[in-house]
């Protein structure tokens, strides 16, 4: 049954998809968060089994391009938080052109060429240990953060992603460099605090919670919020001056076997129903403005103001400022200032 | 060097040892007492599994007995009642293994020197002493070789050198010759005996070969099933065995199916397949009398003789220096072996069994 408001010929896609009966998704979102989505999708379109392959974002990329080149079975839909890798695949011609039915409801920056779509609206947050940090001390802007961590108490106790290892970390940091005029001071502050870098969100959260580190920078807000729910030690701040936003990018494989099922999945993820699940059950922040609740873009924008929200665009432009030379130069500078030992 | 017969270098008293414990305990030594005097060579003889190696290892400290005492010289090294047990490395004994157990990664010199190094002797003293011992054993020129580069006989000497070098009061040898060639063995046993006597050592040597035991030792301990069956010098063990077991073990024997007709002190009259013979009683006498005679005591005669039985010749085996002839009665009931200097012709012979060598147990 086509969802309400969809064009009449949508039923054809549904029928074809039912015939395909199967959908293969490669994703970098952990299966705990994906589970509700798949369950709901199956309820909506019974008869289509979703095969979800949970990998990290590099694995998604490696596996997909290898399989695509070999011409064997591969994913119908690729969904990953590594926006740059996703855009590379999409712009290298691996994405199928498909204009989603939901396009009118989505922000313009979150779509590219009817090929790649952003699906979430995840802020980069500052996370701190509530037990060990005074409420007064908690920073609310980048400047406050930079000032705070230069205090001796924070030496060896500040953490962030190792931008040499983590794609997300690197992307946030380069965005910071573009958005934040006093980025150099921030870098220096990291250097003073002898920032401890980690390659995954989990390690960062664990260490902040235990008190080994006091404060973490640019932690993926979606994960932090989930953790904060069960762990009273964790406090999450979205910087008021500006907050970076990451969006998980999805596209349909050009050589997809189950094209129709893939289209259904894409539309579903972007639909109000799908976005509601993403927000309320997966806690990944819905990107659609018409979805309300705690973890939604609407709520976020309400908190910090429309102008202070700085999403990373779903556009090959991310590749431009993430090109090899710029990358290396940026990494070098980072290591020399923030990473000095 | 003078040999002082009065001091005991090794005393074992009422030693009990078992493997396993509790319900599965398997007693191996069942009260062994023995001693070894200074300058004496004692052979521990017995059939396979009788506990010879076990006794030796208990003395060396490699097995833990259950009861009894062991003294080396004046030192008590084991006392079952006090649960005292001196570790092997402090007993200061020399031990030669059947397998030699040379350390394959050390040269001959290092093998021999090791015991001295452990005793913190200076390097030059060690060198001197080791070379002296090696020379005594005719190995002076082989010091730099590795064990695998030497023949069995040479390896055996290295094992002995290694056990001798720190002048232990007692040296223990576990079948030191059994890994050698038949021919080499004969030479080696003469050499070994000569060496032990020359150096004035006290030695306890395990063997299961009675010929070897007799050739090499001053005294023989015959072990049977965890107990000392009989002990004495080789001649007394061979010529005046007290038990059937000793008699059978100590030589090549003929066992005769005989009925005792009459006993009169040590004089016994027996009946072998109809022939009446005189014989001598030995030991305490058991329920079922056993009659035997050493193979070399049987005299072959082509004519009727005294105290003899007549049997047809079955076959003669050539032994080189003599022939071993097998006689068998028609019904197969009697088998008799005898030596002969020459090959005998087929036919019937009178086998004379001297009354004093025909033993009834």
């Amino acid at each position, binding site marked *: 049954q086509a969802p309400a408001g969809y064009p009449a010929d949508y039923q054809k896609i549904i029928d074809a998809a039912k015939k395909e009966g199967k959908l293969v998704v490669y994703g970098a979102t952990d299966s705990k968060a994906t589970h509700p989505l798949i369950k709901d999708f199956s309820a909506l379109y019974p008869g289509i089994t979703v095969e979800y392959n949970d990998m990290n974002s590099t694995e998604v990329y490696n596996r997909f391009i290898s399989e695509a080149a070999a011409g064997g079975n591969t994913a119908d839909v690729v969904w990953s938080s590594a926006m740059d890798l996703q855009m590379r695949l999409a712009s290298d011609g691996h994405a199928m052109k498909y204009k989603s039915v939901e396009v009118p409801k989505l922000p313009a920056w979150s779509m590219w060429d009817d090929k790649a779509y952003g699906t979430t609206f995840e802020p980069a947050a500052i996370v701190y240990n509530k037990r060990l940090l005074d409420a007064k001390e908690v920073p609310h802007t980048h400047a406050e953060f930079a000032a705070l961590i230069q205090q001796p108490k924070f030496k060896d106790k500040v953490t962030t992603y190792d931008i040499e290892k983590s794609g997300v970390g690197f992307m946030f940091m380069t965005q910071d460099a573009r958005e934040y005029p006093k980025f150099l001071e921030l870098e220096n502050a990291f250097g003073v605090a002898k920032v401890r870098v980690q390659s*995954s969100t989990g390690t*960062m959260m664990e260490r902040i919670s*235990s008190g080994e580190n006091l404060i973490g920078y640019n932690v993926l807000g979606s994960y932090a919020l989930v953790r904060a729910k069960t762990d009273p*030690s964790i406090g999450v701040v979205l910087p008021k001056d500006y907050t970076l936003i990451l969006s998980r990018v999805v596209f349909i494989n050009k050589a997809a076997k189950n094209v129709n099922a893939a289209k259904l999945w894409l539309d579903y993820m972007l639909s109000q129903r799908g976005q509601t699940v993403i927000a309320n059950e997966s806690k990944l922040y819905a990107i659609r403005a018409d979805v309300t609740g705690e973890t939604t873009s609407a709520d976020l924008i309400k908190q910090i103001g429309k102008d202070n929200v700085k999403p990373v665009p779903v556009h090959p432009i991310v590749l431009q400022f993430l090109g090899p030379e710029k*990358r290396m130069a940026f990494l070098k500078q980072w290591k020399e200032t923030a990473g000095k030992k | 060097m003078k040999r002082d017969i009065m001091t005991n270098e090794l005393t074992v008293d009422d030693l009990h040892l078992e493997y396993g414990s509790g319900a599965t305990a398997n007693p191996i030594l069942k009260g062994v007492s023995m001693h070894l005097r200074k300058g004496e060579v004692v052979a521990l003889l017995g059939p396979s599994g009788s506990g010879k190696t076990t006794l030796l290892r208990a003395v060396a400290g490699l097995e833990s007995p259950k009861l009894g005492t062991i003294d080396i010289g004046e030192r008590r090294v084991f006392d079952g009642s006090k649960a005292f047990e001196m570790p092997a*490395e402090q007993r200061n*004994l020399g031990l030669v293994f059947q397998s030699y157990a040379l350390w394959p990664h050390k040269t001959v010199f290092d093998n021999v020197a090791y015991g001295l190094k452990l005793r913190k002797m200076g390097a030059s003293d060690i060198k001197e002493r080791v070379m002296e011992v090696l020379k005594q054993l005719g190995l002076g020129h082989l010091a730099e070789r590795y064990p695998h580069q030497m023949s069995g006989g040479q390896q055996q000497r290295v094992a002995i050198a*290694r056990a001798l070098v720190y002048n232990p009061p007692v040296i223990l040898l576990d079948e030191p010759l059994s890994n050698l060639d038949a021919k080499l063995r004969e030479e080696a046993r003469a050499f070994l005996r000569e060496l032990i006597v020359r150096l004035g050592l006290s030695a306890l040597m395990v063997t299961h070969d009675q010929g070897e035991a007799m050739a090499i030792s001053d005294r023989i301990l015959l072990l049977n099933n965890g107990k000392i069956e009989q002990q004495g010098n080789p001649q007394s063990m061979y010529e005046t065995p007290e038990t059937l077991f000793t008699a059978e073990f100590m030589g090549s024997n003929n066992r005769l199916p005989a009925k005792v007709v009459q006993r009169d002190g040590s004089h016994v009259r027996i009946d072998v397949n109809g022939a009446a013979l005189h014989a001598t009683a030995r030991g305490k006498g058991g329920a079922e009398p056993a009659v035997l005679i050493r193979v070399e005591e049987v005299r072959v005669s082509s004519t009727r003789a005294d105290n003899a039985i007549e049997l047809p010749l079955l076959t003669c085996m050539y032994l080189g220096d003599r022939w071993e002839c097998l006689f068998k009665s028609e019904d197969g009931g009697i088998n008799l072996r005898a030596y002969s200097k020459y090959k005998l012709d087929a036919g019937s012979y009178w086998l004379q069994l001297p009354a004093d060598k025909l033993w009834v147990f």
Partner: protein
Amino acid sequence: MQTLALPGSGRRGLNWPRGVVVTLTAIAIFLPLYLIFYQSFLSAPFFMPEKVLGLDAYRFIFDDPDFAMAFKNGLTLATGLTLIAVPMGGALAFLMIRTDLPGRGWIAPMLLVPIFVSPMVMGFGYVVSMGPVGFYSTWAKDLLGFVPWNIYSFTSIVIIAGLTHVPHVYLYASSALKSLGSDVEEAARVAGASPLQVMLNVSLPMIMPALAYAGVLVFFLGFEVFGLVLVLGDPEGHLVLPTYLYKLTNKLGTPSYHLMAAVAVCLVMVTLPLVMIQRWLLKSANKYVSIKGKGARSKAMPLGRWKWLAFGVLFAWLLFTIIMPLTGIVLRSFVQYWGEGVNLADVLTLQHFRDILAEPSLIRGIVNTVLIGVIGGGLAVACYSAIALAMHRKPDGITRALDYSVLVPRAVPGLLAGLAFLWVFLFVPSWLDGMFKASDSGVGTWLSEHLIPALRSIRSTIFAVWLAYSVVWLAYGMRLISTALLQVGPELEEAARAVGAKRGQVTRDVTLPLIKYGLLGAWLMVFLIFEREYSTGVYLLSPGTEVIGAMLVSLWAGGSTDLVAALSFINITLVAIGLGIALRFGVKLHN
């Protein structure tokens, strides 16, 4: 009487089973290696049209200071690890096999813990227990006013890596010791050597070949240490080669296979001479060390006054290598959160276990892992046996070549080895397909229609995962079996041939039944290894075939450290129970 004739006669046939085994093994080893080698000389992924042949990759990594540092660290780590693990493993084997050390019975299974607990989990355990705010550290701080150790320093990482690899050496050393007659040791004792001197002067020198082999193997594993460095090395930024590979993925924006391959080739190049040195060592060592299988009696050597010292050292090792990290993991799995200023009693919870039980894929993961461990381990042992038999008592060039080859896969970090296997499963069918199509014959078409789809579908089955695991751990498993094989007296096999048994019959009726217990032991070991392996399988796993190792990594990345702890706890408990049962029913850890 008539002589009974044998069925069949004629010349010595071609040994085709051996040919098949050797060929398949060579393919399984060298095909992935070849791909890596080839890839390292290209400028782009080998399957991309725009690739160019060249040395760019090598130029890049040699210019990269990070590579130099990672390489130096890797070398230090591998060397340090070997220097710690080999003497300790040897000493441990001596204590456990030869002496009357108290508590040998319960220590033996404990020793296996570091083999089946993933190093990442171990590392995490150390963070929880001995990290800057770990609970042992907090105690120490309360007592002393400061924390006397820094778990994140490179020295700590080397020490931990060394200590957790002690069991690997222990296994080899102990089985060598068992086949060594104890008479040489007794000879030393009677000569006046204390147990310590016996060990240093006789036992360890005599098992030199086994120690050399184990040494080279753990040296390789040292280059491969990833999980531990990932967890403990990040905070201070210590880089080793596998983590450098990880970094390379990100350095140029997109994964750069040529660079990763070049690193792997460098690793193989470093380790090759090592294998040669080891061969040479073994050769000169074997010359004079003839291990006699004389099963003569050996009474446990009384340690006397050394007893409690030895026990103390061993206990310290157990405490530091097993008890500390495990208590960390256990603790973490029962608390909501922890750390400085947290009263643990207030935060106890069973929630994590409830979460796991509620997640069907986690349960499935546990089942899969046990299956791949038990069944896959069994199959791997079967294959290893086939290879070991192909080399058994055939001292020719093929055997030597195979002997060298089996170690090489372990020189490639698991991460890349997994990718190489993915490539093999993906591209080999494509190439074959191309060939068949080009041949344009009926057979070619038929093959391309029937064989190729079958080959392609292999990849998404658990078989692919199994194959990758089996190849990577080939050296380890094979050695376990060839040691057992060496203990079969050649006459037993020759006697069978003399009564008329053909090669296959000899193997089936005599050799294999005789190494039954060796095989069971090997199975247990391979089970434990497969139980914790993950990096090699990452690219080959698909939904339904998850294994715990991979799930732990994914949970970790998603930030669910609590679930990581709980899942590890369940895993360790299950394996420990299984191990207990296996040991109870007479499976021997070494033959």
